[in-house]
C-alpha cells in the first residue's frame, strides 16, 4: 500500500490518496498518513480510494476512527471514488450511512463550497 498526502484549496482541503490493499499489515501506515493530513488542520479531509483494491474490517476501523476524530474538531471527513468491490463493502456494512461518498475530489470540494 502507498499513500500520498496533499493540500488543496489553499490548505482548506487535505487529501489522503491511498493505493493498493488496506489490510492488517498497513494500518499504522494508514494512521500515519491521516495524522499527516490532519496536522495541516484542513476544514475538510478527503480519503481518495480510487486506487484501493482491497479493504478489510480493520481498514474500515481506521476510517471510522479518522471520521470520529474529524467530527470531534468540526472537520468534514469524506471518501472519494471507491471501486465497486470497495463500495460494496461500505454498503454491506452500512457505513455509507456514516461516510459521505463522492465520485470525485472535485465533487467533494464543490459540495463543501
Amino acid at each position, binding site marked *: 500500500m502507498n499513500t500520498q498526502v496533499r493540500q488543496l484549496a489553499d490548505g482548506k482541503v487535505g487529501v489522503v490518496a491511498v493505493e493498493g490493499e488496506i489490510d492488517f499489515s498497513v494500518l499504522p501506515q494508514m494512521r500515519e498518513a491521516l495524522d499527516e493530513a490532519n496536522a495541516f488542520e484542513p476544514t475538510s479531509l478527503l480519503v481518495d480510494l480510487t486506487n484501493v483494491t482491497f479493504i*478489510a474490517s480493520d481498514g474500515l476501523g481506521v476510517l471510522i476512527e479518522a471520521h470520529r476524530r474529524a467530527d470531534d474538531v468540526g472537520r468534514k471527513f469524506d471518501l472519494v471514488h471507491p471501486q465497486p468491490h470497495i463500495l460494496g463493502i461500505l454498503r454491506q456494512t452500512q457505513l455509507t450511512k456514516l461516510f459521505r461518498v463522492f465520485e470525485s475530489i472535485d465533487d467533494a470540494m464543490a459540495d463543501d463550497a
Partner: protein
Amino acid sequence: MQDSHEIVIPSTPSGRQQAEDIIMKKVDEFGFSEEARFSIRLAMEEAVVNAIKHGNRFDKDKKVTIRYGFNGRTFTLSVRDEGQGFDPGGVPDPTAPENITLPYGRGLMLMNAYMDRVEFSPAGNEVTLVKTTGED
C-alpha cells in the same frame, strides 16, 4: 477436501501475510472469478486476523492452523486458534445505530456476507469458510 493443505503460522502479521500469499496463489491457479477471489481474500483476512488478534491475543507462542483445499468448484478454508473461543451469536450487529461508529466488530459480518457457508466449531476457536465458484 480432495486437494487439502495445512499451514501453521505464529500469531504475527508476517505469518499471516505469508500464509495468505501462498493460499491466494493457489486460489489464482484454481481459476476463481474475480468476485469469488475477492470474497475469499476478504474472508480469509478476517478469519486469520481474528485468530491472531482475538483468539491468540498476539501471543507469539500460540499458533494459528490454517487448512484449505479444493473439491471440484468448491474452496474450503478452516482457521483454528489456540484461544478460549467465542460465541458468534453474541457478536453485536455492527449496523445497529448504536454500533455504526464503533471501529471494530465487522469481521464476522463480512465473512457471512461474502462466503457461501461459515461455520464455527462448538468451542468457537475454529471457523470453516466455504466458497463455490459459479463458473464451470
